[in-house]
């Protein structure tokens, strides 16, 4: 093994000599159908992994809900189906992904300095059948993670090969239909993975969403995931009508129904194309990984959240088009150092580069036709990061992971208004420390401390005037630090049961706040959160599994509540899969109450939804599945906001609750053929 001078010095900080060594982080072997144990693997109680079977067993109304396999996470929708989901986790209203970093196959999904919201995370390009695993990590405790990862990180990876080719066809209520075809034939000594998905969904809305999407993946891979490479092309396009949130007063006085809308021209179009590649090499002493990507995203989005508040004649509809090309390279190298049977160490160095070339804007529109320009910008945002992380196993009982990360961001904004153009840059160094202590056979304790960050919208880092009001504004810093501390426990002391408990605190120097009537996020005041999370998975028999997660959080900013910040969430899932033809699952989700304004005088109600699924094996390779959403047909909100709006015919603004209802009970029937 050849060691280069700088890594050698770094390595010498932790170990004095190396011997011939072997694999690093070993996945626990999966037997008897149990979820893979994270004992001895994970660095915190809030980290975990869900496998393909776990994910296939989820009952997901929309692809973004796959992320709900992360205990405590909620993915919701407040608009048309093609729009990015609304996420909640760890006491955050994450809007469209402000502090939740999502990755698919080494590509960042969050879009920074996005026209509609910082960290925009549109997962509609995801094809669930291709996902091999989802790894999640909550809290800012890893030097490997950067922007948007303070609440958590969800990382999904597509399989290089499918065990069998799949063809599936689904029909459902409310105009839902989906067909999907995927396979992975061996070609030229490698595997050619292909997938095509066509989907349409109208939803229960008075004006149908008319959501149509076409989604395709083509990947060629050679070798094994840890010793091989792949090149992947993805393409997604979708268009939809939106039923945005509606004012409660209009529903209560009968002016509109629960599934009606105010502005019948809201909606959008999205396109995403990417080419990416991953190369990995692993031997007994070291592991290297390089991934690179080019992503082109285009969005047209027309929204109207305040109706006739700002413009009683034309209405308040606005457009937020965004088109961008994101390029990036991530590289890591790990040296595995092995001193004795109980003492070993992995030293990882990594670098991440990302560039976004963005054209976006904010326009006043009427029935999707532009009538005024609020702002129009060309943004170039470039970031680089380097990190060093050392994971040492001091004994069978004690492990530590220590890391440090340096981030540099450069923002360049050219726009239609010279006073809001310019350049800015920011640098941030973030340390992390994780200790896992488990002198017992099946229980571990964790202590975690770390700094994380999110970037602010580039436009705010150079702005001097508000383009709407022309008032002077202060420039925001480019990068905002978060500080997290957590104590956790993971135990399998009860046979066939995996349990974890985490208590955490997370401070942010500045909260990214959603501005309802502007349809954007802005840098706000500092915040502090406390929370507790409890997660259980019990598999008493091979054919029966029960999972239960509960999370509670307290979020404050300068002593005030944070609008939309989630306080509690819980999920109970039961899955039955006997060896016979029948299988089934039920999932109960409690989406806890949220304060809707700072003084907590207006709050959203909690909602409970029950989803179910029954599968029947018609033949060896033919399965019929019936999925039912909102089985109890509850009338509840998918999301609530409180702000001022004005309807046609109203003479003054009205501060009111605005909500988007959850979909009533609906069924989907799927036929899956594998070969």
């Amino acid at each position: 093994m050849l060691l280069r001078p700088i890594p050698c010095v770094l390595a010498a900080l932790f170990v004095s000599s190396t011997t011939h060594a072997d694999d690093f982080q070993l996945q626990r072997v999966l037997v008897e159908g149990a979820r893979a144990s994270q004992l001895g693997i994970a660095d915190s109680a809030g980290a975990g992994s869900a496998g393909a079977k776990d994910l296939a067993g989820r009952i997901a109304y929309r692809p973004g809900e796959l992320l709900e396999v992360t205990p405590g996470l909620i993915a919701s929708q407040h608009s048309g189906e093609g729009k990015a989901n609304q996420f909640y986790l760890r006491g955050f209203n994450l809007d469209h992904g402000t502090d939740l970093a999502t990755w698919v196959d080494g590509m960042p999904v969050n879009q920074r300095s996005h026209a509609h919201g910082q960290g925009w995370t549109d997962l509609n390009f995801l094809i669930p059948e291709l996902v091999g695993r989802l790894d999640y990590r909550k809290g800012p405790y890893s030097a490997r993670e950067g922007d948007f990862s303070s609440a958590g990180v969800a990382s999904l990876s597509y399989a290089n090969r499918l065990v069998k080719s799949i063809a599936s066809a689904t029909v459902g209520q409310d105009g839902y239909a989906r067909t999907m075809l995927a396979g992975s034939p061996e070609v030229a000594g490698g595997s050619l993975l292909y997938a095509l998905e066509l989907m349409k969904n109208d939803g229960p809305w008075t004006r149908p969403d008319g959501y149509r999407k076409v989604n395709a993946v083509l990947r060629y891979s050679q070798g094994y995931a840890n010793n091989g490479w792949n090149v992947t092309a993805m393409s997604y396009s979708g268009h939809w009508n939106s039923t945005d949130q509606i004012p409660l007063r209009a529903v209560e006085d009968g002016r509109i129904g629960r599934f009606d809308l105010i502005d019948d021209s809201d909606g959008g179009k999205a396109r995403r194309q990417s080419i990416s590649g991953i190369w990995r090499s692993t031997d007994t002493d070291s592991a290297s990984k390089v991934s690179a990507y080019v992503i082109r995203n285009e969005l047209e989005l027309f929204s109207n959240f305040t109706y006739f508040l700002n413009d009683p004649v034309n209405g308040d509809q606005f457009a937020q088009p965004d088109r961008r090309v994101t390029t990036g390279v991530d590289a890591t190298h790990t040296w595995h150092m092995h001193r004795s049977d109980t003492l070993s160490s992995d030293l990882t160095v990594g670098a991440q580069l990302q560039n976004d070339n963005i054209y976006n804007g904010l326009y006043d529109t009427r029935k999707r036709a532009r009538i005024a320009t609020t702002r129009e910008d060309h943004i170039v945002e470039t970031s680089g990061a380097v990190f060093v992380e050392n994971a040492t196993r001091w004994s069978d009982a004690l492990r530590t992971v220590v890391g440090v990360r340096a981030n540099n961001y450069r923002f360049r904004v050219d726009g239609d208004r010279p006073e809001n153009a310019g350049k800015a840059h920011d640098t941030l160094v973030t340390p992390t420390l994780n200790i896992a202590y488990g002198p017992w056979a099946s229980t571990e304790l964790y202590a975690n401390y770390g700094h994380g960050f999110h970037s602010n919208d580039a436009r705010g880092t150079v702005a001097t005037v508000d383009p709407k009001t022309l008032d002077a504004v202060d420039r925001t810093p480019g990068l905002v630090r978060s500080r997290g501390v957590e104590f956790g426990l993971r135990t399998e002391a009860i046979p066939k049961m995996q349990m974890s408990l985490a208590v955490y605190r997370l401070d942010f120097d500045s909260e990214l706040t959603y501005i309802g009537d502007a349809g954007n996020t802005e840098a706000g005041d500092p915040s502090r959160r406390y929370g507790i999370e409890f997660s259980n998975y019990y598999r008493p028999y091979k054919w029966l599994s029960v999972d239960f997660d509960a999370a509670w959080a307290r979020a404050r900013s300068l002593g005030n509540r944070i609008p939309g910040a989630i306080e509690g969430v819980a999920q109970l899932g039961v899955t039955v899969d006997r060896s016979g033809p029948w299988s089934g699952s039920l999932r109960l989700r409690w989406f806890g109450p949220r304060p809707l304004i700072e003084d907590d005088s207006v709050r959203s109600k909690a909602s409970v939804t029950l989803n179910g699924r029954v599968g029947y094996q018609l033949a060896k390779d033919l399965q019929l599945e019936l999925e039912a959403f909102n089985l109890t047909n509850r009338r509840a909100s998918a999301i609530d906001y409180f702000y001022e709006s004005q309807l046609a015919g109203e003479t003054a603004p009205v501060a009111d609750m605005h909500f988007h209802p959850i979909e009533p009970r609906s069924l989907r029937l799927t036929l899956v053929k594998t070969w």
Partner: protein
Amino acid sequence: MRLHGLKSVLLALLLCASAAASAHRFHFGMTDISYNARTESTEIVHTYTAHDIDALLLNLYGRQFDLSDVEDQAVLRTYVERHFWLADKDGKKLPVTWIGMTADAQSVVIYQELAATPLSAAAVIRQGMLVDFLAEQVNTVNLNEGGAVRSLTFLRQTLEQPAR
């Protein structure tokens, strides 16, 4: 189908050595091939470390498999049948059939059979299990003919060897 006493001890020691996640792990496989006069069949028993098989499938398919699940066992079967075979003197593959497998957190044991065929029918053995995945994989094949045991060692450079 009984492992020789000394080999059992050796196997147990190797499995223990490979069990500790942090320890250096030996990548090895052991295949016992013997003729059973009672059933008049040649019986084949493979033993591998569970971690190696788990990692193999994880890195091949990008997902984890439950080796106690029959559907998932079929995935391993496909791999085994591609990398381990016996051929007669004309180079024609002999019809080795899959009997079953067992798995626990330590080891994976795979049972195959060459029905109504003596071991002497096998002229060539190919044992490439895990070798394409782990460069250091060492596979030992023990041939038990009438109580006499011969051992062959298969490395990346020697995937095929004459059986006699």
